[in-house]
């Protein structure tokens, strides 16, 4: 009885809180564009910069060069060596992070308002005059190799590596951006200089800031940081169509558990049915504790501690994938449960109650994303890369609301391909064998 009352109350309360996020589009005096959310409550600013390309720009035989180069950005610039750069950064209480992924190189900075100019100066040196000292190259190379050694014995990493190879083949997405032991061992300082020149260029910059900074102040920051960037960089790779063929690949690994990763083709963000796909994914394997996969695998059968799925739209491909870990003797059963759920959703779609709950969840959760300056800056960069307008946050929930039960059913039949679902199985799975 009470359960029903609570559900009614939930529906009545479900009008989503409005995201009061005010995005300004800023153009610096030098013509660099950025998005800004001014928030003067705490005296610091989060700045997020992304250069498209990333580890997919690695030249033939040089796998891992963009990753290693990015890790070396904070290892000295201009007159500052590694120790000098770190001491300057830490003495200013700034946080500067540089990372490379398969679609870009990201720079995240947080700095106190009173130190803004000095931190911008330091970041400017890093982004324009990195040293790539021989001792730093060797030290960081050692760290990258240590990571590769660890990955070789990490079942999650092993599964990821097999999945990439299966899904993307010879495209750069098909291998790990960190490189291999051989390729990383062969990288030289000249490679770092070349990778730097290829990765950082004005044509591929996306910037956002959130925090204690005005539009005029941000404009000056942008010009100092990015004004001297060369116009263009290395060529980006082309699109890759997923090798969508169903099957199973088993890799033996010691231990009590088996890691299972699975994937099939995804859907592009600009597809008219993208929001129906998002809703479908939430019902299938999103939403933490209340998805079909979580209910069937964890709540009903106790087969796993957790399972989730996601839709990923990369710059050059789309994929739908998921992962879980199960006791070795339960691997075959878990795979069958996943296949059955996939087939059921493809054939029958979702229920009206699932659709309604998921809409309420997605529209309610959206404004909760915008918490904290760092998170906001990062979201704003992502929106620009997707080509969204700055008023998108105010309009997004209406697009979720517009999806109907028939839309999801049609999309599920189109998107979900149970016969093309591919499973990568790493561990001591009992009763599971490779399909070829």
């Amino acid at each position, binding site marked *: 009885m009470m359960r029903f009352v609570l559900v009614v109350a939930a529906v009545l309360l479900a009008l989503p809180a409005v995201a009061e996020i005010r995005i300004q589009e800023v153009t610096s005096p030098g013509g660099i564009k950025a998005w800004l959310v001014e928030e003067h409550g705490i005296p610091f600013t989060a700045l997020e910069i992304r250069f498209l390309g990333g580890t997919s720009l690695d030249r033939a035989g040089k796998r891992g060069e963009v990753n290693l180069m990015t890790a070396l950005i904070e290892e000295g610039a201009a007159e500052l060596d590694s120790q000098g750069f770190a001491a300057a950064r830490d*003495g200013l209480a700034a946080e500067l992070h540089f990372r490379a992924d398969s679609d870009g190189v990201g720079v995240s900075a947080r700095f106190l308002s009173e130190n803004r100019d000095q931190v911008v100066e330091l970041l400017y040196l890093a982004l324009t005059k990195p040293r790539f000292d021989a001792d730093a190259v060797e030290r960081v190379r050692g760290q990258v190799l240590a990571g590769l050694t660890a990955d070789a014995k990490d079942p999650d990493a092993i599964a990821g590596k097999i999945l990439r190879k299966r899904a993307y083949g010879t495209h750069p997405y098909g291998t790990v951006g960190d490189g291999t032991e051989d390729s990383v061992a062969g990288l030289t300082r000249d490679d770092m200089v070349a990778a730097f020149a290829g990765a950082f260029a004005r044509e591929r910059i996306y910037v956002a800031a959130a925090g204690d900074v005005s539009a005029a102040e941000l404009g000056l920051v942008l010009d100092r940081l990015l004004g001297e960037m060369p116009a263009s960089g290395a060529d980006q790779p082309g699109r890759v169509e997923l090798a969508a063929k169903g099957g199973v690949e088993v890799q033996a690994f010691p231990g009590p558990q088996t890691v299972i990763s699975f994937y099939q083709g995804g859907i592009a963000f600009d597809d008219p049915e993208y929001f129906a796909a998002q809703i479908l994914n939430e019902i299938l394997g999103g939403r933490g504790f209340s998805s079909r996969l979580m209910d069937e695998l964890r709540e009903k059968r106790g087969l796993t501690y957790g399972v989730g799925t996601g839709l990923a739209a990369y710059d050059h491909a789309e994929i739908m994938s998921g992962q879980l870990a199960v006791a070795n003797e339960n691997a075959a059963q878990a795979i069958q449960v996943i296949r059955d759920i996939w087939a059921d959703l493809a054939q029958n779609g979702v229920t009206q109650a699932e659709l309604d709950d998921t809409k309420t969840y997605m529209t309610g959760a959206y404004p909760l994303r915008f918490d904290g300056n760092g998170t906001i800056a990062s979201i704003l960069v992502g929106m620009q890369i997707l080509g969204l307008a700055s008023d998108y946050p105010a309009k997004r929930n209406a697009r979720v609301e517009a999806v109907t039960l028939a839309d999801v059913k049609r999309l599920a039949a189109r998107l979900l391909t149970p016969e093309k679902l591919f499973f990568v199985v790493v561990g001591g799975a009992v009763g599971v064998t490779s399909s070829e």
Partner: protein
Amino acid sequence: MRLLWIIGVVLSAVPAWADAVSTFTLDNGMEVVVIEDHRAPVVVHMVWYRIGAADDTPGRSGIAHFLEHLMFQGTTTVAPGDLSKIVAAQGGSDNAFTALDYTAYFQRVAADRLDLVMGLEADRMRNLNLTEQDVATERQVILDERNERTDSDPAALLGEQMAAAQYMNHPYGIPVIGWRHEIEALSRQDALEFYRANYAPNNAILVVAGDVDPDEVLAMATAHYGPLPPSADIKPRVRPTEPAQLAERRLVLADERVAQPYVIRTYLAPERNAGDQRQAAALKLLAELLGGNPTTSVLARALQFDTQKAVYSAAFYDGLALDRDTFGLVVVPVPGQSLLDIEAAMDGVLAGFLKDGVKAEDFARIKTQIRASEIYGRDNVQGLAQQYGAALAVGLSVKDVQDWPGLLQNVTADEVMAAARTVFDRRNAVTGWLEAPPITTPEVQQ
């Protein structure tokens, strides 16, 4: 150039952030902490119980954690799993965690949904309803969790063995998730007894952080939690204590899944205590100086820069514990360096530090960073809620939390060195080696 940067740092006085925090106590003994942050229409609602894995019934290790899972299995009025579904239907998220000294439950929702989640949390404080079937399924889930987090990870296994060696008598030596053979035997009755004995408003702390008005939170808390009767059975948190530790302990865990061998050492160390946190503050600064930074810390400089013996090094100390905590060091050698050699190198660095003392520029830089981290920390209201909740759950007061940043600023280098000389006593230490088993050459038959 370098000098210029350092002189350039003149931080203005950081205002005490205490203004945003209000505290109350309900008539039934439940403590309430409200942290205001009006930047976004979001609220985090947390209930912390002063009961953790170190309070597990002897022979029933893992019961506090198992109960945490079972708290999602419904009440007399809410069906199993529905609490999370109701929160998710609001766009919110919820979860829970168990540590050695506390168990906490939280929801993150739009600020105007606070009343709803508070009602649900208050309901399950006293009205948990468990079926044998739900208990059996969930026991399988926590065995899966142990498989995933511990048994599949040699580093986690070594940590578990080291804690067991570090604490010879105190229950901090028993893993939070429990020993497998004891988890397998946990029953519905065990969970319900533990629940009835420990889940009550006078054993709980409510932390609400976000876009809320403290008076409205108090009124809401009084309405939801106020009617719950306090328990007369809450016992003082007195646990078995450690005897004098007389012999260093050394462990080697060899596992074929180890890719990166390392040396890790923990020393028994004093914790933060109410009104008495100065030595803990000195230890926190010691950890930062020795191994808090991958480039400029004493260990990193000595083992990764001046010599190239390690790929990674760190020192760690938290101090947020009811009873004696540990101070830790870890060094990952470069390939070719033996664990014996790298441990000797680590000890050489410690000996050098004890002889040479703290460098003034290092000390100033670390204090600047700590001060800034307080400002950055305000950007994360859930993090603030966690700081207050954890501190209160281990017996500290709101004042202790607010005094802590100031203490970190005015502890002297001499106090840090005194703390170092006290804590680095090998009789109190456990040293662990994580390594791959020796390679045996298989016999080849011609």
